[in-house]
């Protein structure tokens, strides 16, 4: 037991610090770390080294090499740097490498050295050069801050959504600040810089001088400053070897320490953890590492080699040519259990379990001791928690075993915390493996979340491990396995040496119909890599046509896109494709394409009807659709043309089209209409009044009403109005004129083709019973009853009906018998009926 705490170093009264090895590095570094630009991503991220930086003034012919390693020193990428001089390197939260060049350009590389994109930090930098740059992380993402040759700062709080903000000027600043850092307060990024004995806080509008409270006097310059991982704390190192530690708001001092070393430290970083007892700062010089906090003594380590510090959420990683270590404050649970002579319940439980394995009765004694204090639950929890903080699997195991042992003596201990810890540790141990090289601690893992961890595995192309983790943790497919498979497929399509067929098949085999996988996304990636054919093959697997179309259009496979759009039944989609096609093809080809797609054609026609009439005409022309062309011109004759000549011309074109369509009826009708229009025009000129656009029937009626009988007759002859119509027409018109004399003449002109009942009806409609009766007598026998009833002669109607011996007529008359006046008639009918029945 005591040997376990051998590497524990106390700081002050309360806290212990320990440093343990994560990996022994066997990266084959040719140069010293101090000759390189170094960037290591937090959360056990990768390490980037840019050798041979320009500041060394070495032979210009030697191009520098950019190398990327995993945290365990496994090489991930190596490339010759061909761009300009680099000032600073840094990793974004998405694990992209940002290389800030002297000219202000920022080049973005992926984990595997693949160039992603670049952006610039503004024009001002071009002249003034970048002196220094920092990459920092906020809740918005990763930001870049630069210091230009003109001693001005520019920053962007999120490189994903680049918005450059130029910070205000420090008045009278002549030289570069001795040190500076970015702070993040109230969700706004600030710059804190030190010039001589003064500290300035900058934002985009103001520059204010600040003084740390309780700063020891006699400071003439600040050599180093460090802000903690969470931006909560700030440490300042002065030229007197004095370290001030306080809150980042500069409102409160935590403590101070004088190390009496006046040499500027190489690095200074905070070493804290969430809910830590002690806030400490790690300062590194060439060969010395010092942990200082609120204690008179500091912890000192000797550095054998060049080392580099990486601040983490809950500690500091220290790597060098040969090792990679982790320095952190011992977490409370571990401290309770492992502290020498600890009587904490967890410690007792661990002891009890050990004794139990040795088959010693002491196990029982320890257990009793815990139970008597009623602290068994707490003991189990402690053991579980402590297991999480242990790096070595054997220690994790023994702690978990103790927890599991203690659990046996508890009635109702919810098992999920134990189960979850086992699962988490298994995942953590897997990713900490040398080959994977992500040395996450438990707290970092919880902060990062499993989703992000999976993303990072995917980023490292560790698809099998990622999938195993998903399956092990039973993550829902959409979030887990299928997402990873989709990423895998996107990576797969980039393998240029494999044939399209093979890639497509391989992808389909793996992915199948896994829910949540979008084949169109994968196809888009394939197209992005210039593999159009592969993209088309992949799209075939996409079940949703709607997803296929946009990409097909992008790939200029418009006709295929049209087919897919029509299949989808989504007219909007069809329309999108149509407009694409319209711009892409010449008119003739476009129309030809439409011709083979009736659904698209009718859609486009609808659009043209409202928006592009001329195109509609062209469409019909193209198809030799003379019928529709005729209709089109007829419509045009109403809509567009005001003058009669224009209308007639349009109608003529229509008639020609109808002839071509072999629709003689329509052609003749159109010609009649032209004739009618001309005639109406003439009538208007000669007689005045309104004739245009009346129907033939109405034209004749108007003429009769106007007393132009001759003209009316002429017109009827010219247009061959059938007799029946003419009689109806004349009858109605004359009755309306109440020209009874003329009507009578007309009725006698020849035998009426419509009979005489209409005469009766129309006269009655004009309330002329007298005239009506005249005609009633001429009505044929079969309608006589009806006519008589119309003129109100019920008695006579009854006589006729009886004479006809027609049952229907009898009842009709009967239904017209009202009241007393027709009583006799009614009786008569009844009698007749009775007689008829007798017979």
């Amino acid at each position, binding site marked *: 037991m005591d040997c376990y705490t051998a590497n524990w170093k106390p700081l002050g009264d309360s806290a212990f610090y320990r440093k343990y090895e994560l990996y022994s590095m066997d990266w084959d570094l040719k140069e010293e770390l101090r000759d390189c630009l170094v960037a290591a991503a937090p959360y056990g991220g990768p390490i980037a080294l840019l050798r041979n930086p320009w500041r060394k003034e070495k032979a210009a012919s030697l191009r520098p090499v950019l190398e990327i390693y995993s945290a365990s020193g496994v090489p991930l990428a190596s490339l010759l740097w061909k761009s300009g001089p680099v000032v600073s390197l840094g990793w974004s939260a998405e694990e992209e490498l940002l290389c800030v060049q002297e000219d202000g350009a920022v080049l973005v590389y992926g984990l595997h050295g693949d160039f992603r994109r670049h952006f610039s930090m503004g024009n001002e930098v071009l002249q003034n050069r970048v002196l220094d740059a920092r990459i920092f992380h906020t809740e918005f993402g990763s930001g870049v801050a630069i210091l230009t040759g003109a001693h001005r700062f520019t920053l962007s709080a999120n490189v994903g959504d680049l918005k450059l903000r130029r910070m205000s000027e420090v008045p009278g600043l002549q030289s570069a600040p001795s040190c500076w850092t970015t702070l993040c307060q109230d969700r706004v990024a600030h710059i804190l810089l030190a010039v001589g004995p003064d500290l300035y806080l900058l934002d985009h509008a103001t520059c204010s001088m600040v003084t740390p409270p309780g700063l020891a006097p006699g400071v003439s310059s600040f050599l180093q400053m460090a802000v903690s991982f969470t931006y909560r704390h700030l440490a300042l190192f002065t030229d007197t070897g004095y370290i001030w530690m306080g809150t980042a708001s500069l409102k409160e001092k935590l403590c101070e320490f004088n190390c009496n070393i006046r040499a500027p430290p190489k690095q200074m970083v905070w070493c804290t953890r969430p809910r830590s007892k002690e806030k400490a700062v790690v300062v590194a010089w060439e060969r010395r590492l010092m942990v200082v906090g609120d204690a008179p003594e500091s912890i000192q380590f000797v550095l054998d080699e060049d080392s580099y510090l990486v601040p983490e959420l809950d500690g500091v990683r220290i790597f060098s040519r040969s090792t990679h270590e982790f320095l952190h404050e011992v977490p409370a649970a571990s401290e309770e259990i492992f502290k020498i002579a600890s009587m904490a319940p967890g410690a007792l439980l661990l002891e009890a379990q050990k004794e139990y394995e040795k088959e010693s009765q002491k196990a029982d004694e320890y257990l009793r001791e815990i139970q008597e204090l009623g602290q068994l639950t707490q003991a189990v929890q402690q053991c579980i928690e402590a297991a999480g903080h242990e790096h070595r699997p054997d220690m994790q195991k023994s702690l978990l075993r103790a927890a599991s042992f203690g659990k046996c003596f508890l009635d109702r201990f919810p098992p999920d915390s134990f189960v979850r810890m086992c699962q988490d540790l298994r995942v953590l141990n897997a990713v900490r493996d040398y080959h994977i090289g992500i040395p996450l601690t438990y707290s970092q893992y919880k902060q990062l979340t499993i989703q992000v961890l999976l993303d990072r595995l995917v980023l490292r192309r560790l698809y099998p491990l990622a999938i195993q983790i998903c399956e092990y943790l039973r993550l829902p497919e959409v979030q887990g396995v299928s997402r990873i498979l989709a990423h895998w497929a996107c990576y797969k399509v980039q393998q240029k040496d494999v044939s399209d067929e093979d890639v497509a098949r391989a992808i389909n085999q793996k992915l199948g119909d896994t829910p949540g996988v979008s084949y169109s996304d994968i196809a888009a990636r394939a197209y992005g890599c210039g593999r159009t054919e592969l993209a088309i093959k992949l799209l075939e697997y996409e079940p949703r046509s709607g997803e296929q179309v946009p990409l097909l259009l992008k790939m200029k496979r418009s006709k295929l896109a049209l087919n897919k759009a029509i299949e989808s039944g989504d007219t909007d989609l069809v329309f999108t494709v149509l407009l694409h096609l319209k711009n892409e093809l010449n008119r003739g080809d476009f129309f030809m394409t439409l011709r083979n797609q009736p*659904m698209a054609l*009718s859609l486009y026609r609808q659009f043209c009807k409202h928006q592009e009439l001329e195109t509609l005409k062209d469409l019909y022309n193209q198809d030799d659709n003379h019928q529709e062309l005729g*209709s089109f011109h007829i419509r045009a004759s109403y809509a567009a043309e005001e003058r009669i000549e224009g209308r007639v011309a349009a109608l003529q074109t229509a008639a020609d089209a109808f002839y071509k369509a072999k629709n003689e009826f329509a052609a003749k009708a159109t010609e009649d209409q032209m004739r009618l229009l001309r005639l109406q025009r003439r009538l208007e000129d000669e007689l005045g009044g309104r004739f245009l656009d009346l129907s033939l029937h109405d034209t004749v009626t108007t003429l009769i009403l106007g007393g132009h009988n001759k003209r009316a007759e002429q017109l009827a002859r010219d247009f061959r109005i059938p007799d029946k119509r003419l009689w109806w027409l004349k009858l109605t018109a004359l009755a309306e004129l109440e020209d009874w004399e003329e009507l009578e003449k007309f009725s006698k002109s020849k035998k009426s083709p419509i009979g005489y009942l209409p005469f009766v009806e129309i006269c009655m409609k004009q309330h002329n019973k007298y005239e009506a009766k005249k005609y009633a007598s001429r009505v044929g026998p079969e309608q006589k009853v009806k006519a008589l009833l119309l003129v109100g002669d019920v008695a006579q109607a009854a006589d006729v009906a009886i004479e006809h011996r027609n049952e229907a007529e009898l009842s009709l008359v009967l239904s017209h018998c009202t009241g007393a006046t027709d009583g006799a008639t009614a009786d008569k009918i009844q009698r007749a009926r009775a007689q008829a029945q007798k017979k």
Partner: protein
Amino acid sequence: MAFPHRPDAPELPDFSMLKRLARDQLIYLLEQLPGKKDLFIEADLMSPLDRIANVSILKQHEVDKLYKVENKPALSSSEHSMQVQSLCLSFLPSVLLQRIPVLVRAFGLCFLVRPRIRNMRYIANLVNADKVAGRTRKYKVIFSPQKFYACEMVLEEEGIYGDVSCDEWAFSLLPLDVDLLSMELPEFFRDYFLEGDQRWINTVAQALHLLSTLYGPFPNCYGIGRCAKMSYELWRQLEEEEDGETKGRRPEIGHIFLLDRDVDFVTALCSQVVYEGLVDDTFRIKCGSVDFGPEVTSSDKSLKVLLNAEDKVFSEIRNEHFSNVFGFLSQKARNLQAQYDRRRGMDIKQMKNFVSRELKGLKQEHRLLSLHIGACESIMKKKTKQDFQELIKTEHALLEGFNIREGTSYIEEHIDRQVSPIESLRLMCLLSITENGLIPKDYRSLKTQYLQSYGPEHLLTFSNLRRAGLLTEQAPGDTLTAVESKVSKLVTDKAAGKITDAFSSLAKRSNFRAISKKLNLIPRVDGEYDLKVPRDMAYVFSGAYVPLSCRIVELVLERRSWQGLDEVVRLLNCSECAFTDMAKEDKASSESLRLILVVFLGGCTFSEISALRFLGREKGYRFIFLTTAVTNSARLMEAMSEVKA
């Protein structure tokens, strides 16, 4: 005679949720344009909007003034134009601009429109006028029920795409009554069945999807017609994309039946004689309410009356044959009088009870009663003037297929006398469909007569009717069958199944006579058909004809499939589909299995609704109707008419 439901009839689902959903969404959209705003509403949306959100709700969400989007050339019929004039609230843009003082308040303008291109131009004119005047305002276009890409494109072409924000108000289902949902899309009929435009199918699928998320899942699904099939497939796709939501639920509605209007034009073309249908034919029921003119209200004012199940008097007579209605109403009047008369001889306490409890109800009933009596009188007056009996007789003859010559000359006379352009057209179509096309001589002469009577512009109408298969010419046998077999081959081909060639209907034969025989649509009656106690659905047409659409529904429900109806389906020349999900059906209660949603794509008539309600009572079903719009013969004909702009 009232129509009580069978005691075991299933309860209808509560569709008022649809109204709430639509209202909440609209409010949300209005709130997206903060501050005071003027609202421009498309005329067609006014009545539906009125049914779910009144002016005070709009005012609460900072709507200042209401305008109507006016599209001058859009009028389709004379009747329509009259309505527009009487409703005219709108101001021309120039007038509007003068009305709003410049720089006083920055109003937002909100447009609530159907996705139509001419609306986009209207909006563009307004916005561009603002630009010329140097005024900046916020513009928001809310498309209902969805936006179309073509509209956005027009906005872009007009150069205002960046100035307006576009939103969708997915208001596609308006509950007009407890059992009637309407999409209020009358243009569906013309767009799909005439122009071959499939845009609205997506809307239908969306609506079905909404219903199934709220009241679904639907275990059994039947459909007939190409549109039905496409809607069904699109709907399935939507369901699959969002799988899992309805999985665990118990189905509320057991069957869903999709039916294309062109499967049965005949029923829609007949004169309606059931009270509700007759009111629709005579006064036009618009969005569930009707404007009774002075001749009905017997005062000098018009009255807008909501016609639904809440109207106690109406709900008892809506499904009745008209001949019974008068008798019923007078009986009702007598009863009412008797109830009033009870007042005599009451003591003070009883009187107090009477006044506080019953009087209001009685008065209400009195008012409704007098309205419906007025309506009946008005209908009678109109119908006797037109010799309604003769008309009905002709229609029945056409349906039964005898005295065709007489029928034809009746139609001829009808045209010669210029009785009514729409009526004449309707009769021609009815003749054509029942006779499988007109014989060439009649086809030409009737058309010539029609053009002479009602104006040459109807040449275009005839071309439309021909394309829709409503008015066709009997072609010499050989050529037609050749085309027909070609088309039917195309239809069976899966790829071609998705194609709606507007011209395929050219070759479509109605085969009405054969279908009628097969399905026994003309009931054989010994003696008089008793309209008071109807025996079958034929009562909605005075016992002369069972509506084809309803018969199909009846038979398929009986068989739970299309089995044994192959011949009919072939004659109808439509593709059918059926789909049963046993897993879901097992979960369905026997009650929900008797609840049937019938979807009419292209509109349904009140007669069909009455007929199915009758069927439901007979068999213990309950029908729910979903239609793209309530239609009747006149609306059908108007949709096909071309009127010069």
